[in-house]
């Protein structure tokens, strides 16, 4: 039995005539200790998928199993890095992280928790901004706070919804390594949503594309057979890397093309000849 299992998941938003099925027939299983990346087009339902896994949303049909148990609620075992940071604007950086660690480690002393806050804020290089409020930070800095907050809770599984999207290349690289470090150190399980194929290849064991919506479903998986620890500079010369990268990009471009033609078809007017009036 896999660590995380999604069986025949469907997710519909809205009811009656307004109902749109965003995700259809999603099947996914992730083993303990694995690092899986999902790449997908914007609006295809990646965040929806993440919220189904972390317990914020319930599937319309199908089941999510975490360690064999159905997911019915959120849990400290599954840490989430939200796409839109979701920091509380009235708290400082330190307070935002502190709130999380206090909930995750209710028995620890205050000073231990504060040290933990400092460690994780330092990890994302935000120590100088620890007493600032989110409004005073740049988008990238906010995203780093969100990373620190999720990782500081020491979750078994890390669920990341485009966590590094707004970062410059250098910080992005550093944080990728930091996340990989934490993941490999205690053998966590990780699910990364990303729109950057290179990031997926650098970090993940498997890349799974999410087809464009509506009715988005998962495409065929691509295994990344590159030994860890991976070296960013050497990666470019790795034949395996080139092959996988090309295969994924080709696939994505293909489904991107088909999306275009599908959306064109949608605008073709149906035949509405008034034959039913006669009959």
């Amino acid at each position, binding site marked *: 039995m896999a660590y995380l299992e999604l069986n025949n998941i469907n997710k519909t938003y809205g009811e009656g005539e307004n109902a749109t099925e965003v995700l259809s027939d999603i099947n996914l299983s992730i083993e303990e200790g694995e690092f899986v990346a999902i790449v997908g087009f914007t609006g295809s339902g990646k965040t929806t998928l993440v919220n189904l896994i972390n317990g914020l949303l319930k599937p319309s049909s199908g089941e999510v199993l975490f360690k064999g148990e159905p997911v019915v609620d959120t849990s400290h075992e599954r840490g989430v890095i939200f796409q839109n940071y*979701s920091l509380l604007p*009235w708290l400082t950086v330190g307070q935002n992280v502190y*709130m999380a660690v206090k*909930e995750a480690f209710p028995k620890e002393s205050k000073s231990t928790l504060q040290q933990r806050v400092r460690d994780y804020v330092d990890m994302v290089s935000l120590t100088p901004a620890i*007493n600032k409020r989110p409004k005073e930070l740049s988008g990238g800095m906010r995203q780093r706070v969100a990373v620190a907050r999720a990782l500081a809770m020491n979750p078994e599984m890390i669920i990341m919804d485009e966590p590094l999207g707004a970062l410059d290349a250098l910080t992005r690289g550093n944080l990728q390594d930091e996340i990989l470090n934490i993941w490999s150190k205690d053998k966590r399980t990780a699910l990364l949503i990303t729109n950057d194929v290179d990031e997926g290849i650098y970090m993940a064991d498997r890349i799974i594309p999410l087809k464009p919506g509506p009715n988005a479903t998962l495409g065929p998986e691509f295994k990344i057979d590159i030994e860890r620890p991976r070296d960013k500079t050497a990666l470019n010369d790795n034949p395996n890397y080139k092959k996988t990268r090309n295969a994924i990009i080709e696939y994505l471009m293909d489904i991107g093309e088909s999306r275009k033609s599908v959306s064109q078809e949608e605008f073709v007017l149906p035949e509405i000849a008034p034959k039913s009036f006669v009959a």
Partner: protein
Amino acid sequence: MEQEITLKKESQPLAFLKPLVVKFTPKFQKGDIISSLKKTGITIVSILLFLGLWHLGSKALYNKEAAYKIEKALTEQGQAAADAERACIASGDSSCQPNTLPSPAQVWSSLQALIADHKVITADKAAFVEKMAETNIKLVEQGKDAIVYTGRASFVDIVLTSIKTVFAGFLLALLIAVPIGVIIGLSPSLRSAFNWFIQVFKPVSPVVWYLLVFMIVKTLYIGDSSDNAFVISFISVGLCAMWATLVNTAMGVSSVDKDYINVAKVLKLGTFQKVFKVILPSSLPLIFTGLRITLSVAWMVLIAIELLAQSQGLGLFVWEEFQNGANDSNAKIIVAMFIIGIIGFLLDRLMLTVQNMVSFNKNEGV
């Protein structure tokens, strides 16, 4: 890299003075000075213009009424009476002055008269307290009530009573509206249960609130001879003004950003924590907007309610002066009008400062 982290809210008790400090610290930038001079200049010019128009207007009204009086004396009693009337009006004798909109100068002298009166009454009071000190000590020793000064209230006392009433009413509104607003904001079913109630009672006028409170308080105080005018008026003010806070609180609590709720869920905050650490802070700006409206409504309805409740405040003062019809009554009414306006303005500024302090969407202190 040793960096002190503060996990509590920074304690800057005087942070609210920051805007003032910024305003009054001279910044030597030519553009700033010129623009602020210009602003002050425009304000001064507009005040002068206002006073000028007022002066001319009151003069015209005065002349109109004077001419009518003389004309009336002429037609009813003949030339001699008309001349006497004209002389009387010209002499400034108070018995025959036209009683109309007072001029700025009259209002100014009325203000000074009221202040002088306040000084006299204060001195009176002090003398009385001194005189009665020994007697009162004895009375208290005998277990009787001390004798207190029951003379006329001075204008300053009246203003203070009004302020006291409005703050008591505001506090009552806060204590009722915020908790109820939070509760109905949290529960959609309670919200619909309360909705008709809010919609029906919100538009009720201050006079009717007063009558309602009067009915109830009168019965509660039955057999008690003490003065309940203050109680009646502050309760009426509170009930009349609390609706904005109630509605805003409920709205703020029920419309908390979904992202924050998701954070609370992912961190698995308990209900108490969720309400006090996430929902309330995020609705504070709306709650304070409501409180600001409540305070200004409270001040506005106060005058009418004090009048009805016979509470020794500005409302009653204005009404009594109007009934009184004395020579300087009109001027006193205008003084009261300005005092009411200025205090209302200051109260609103106070709330605005508080509101800016709690609003995390603005840069603090700017």
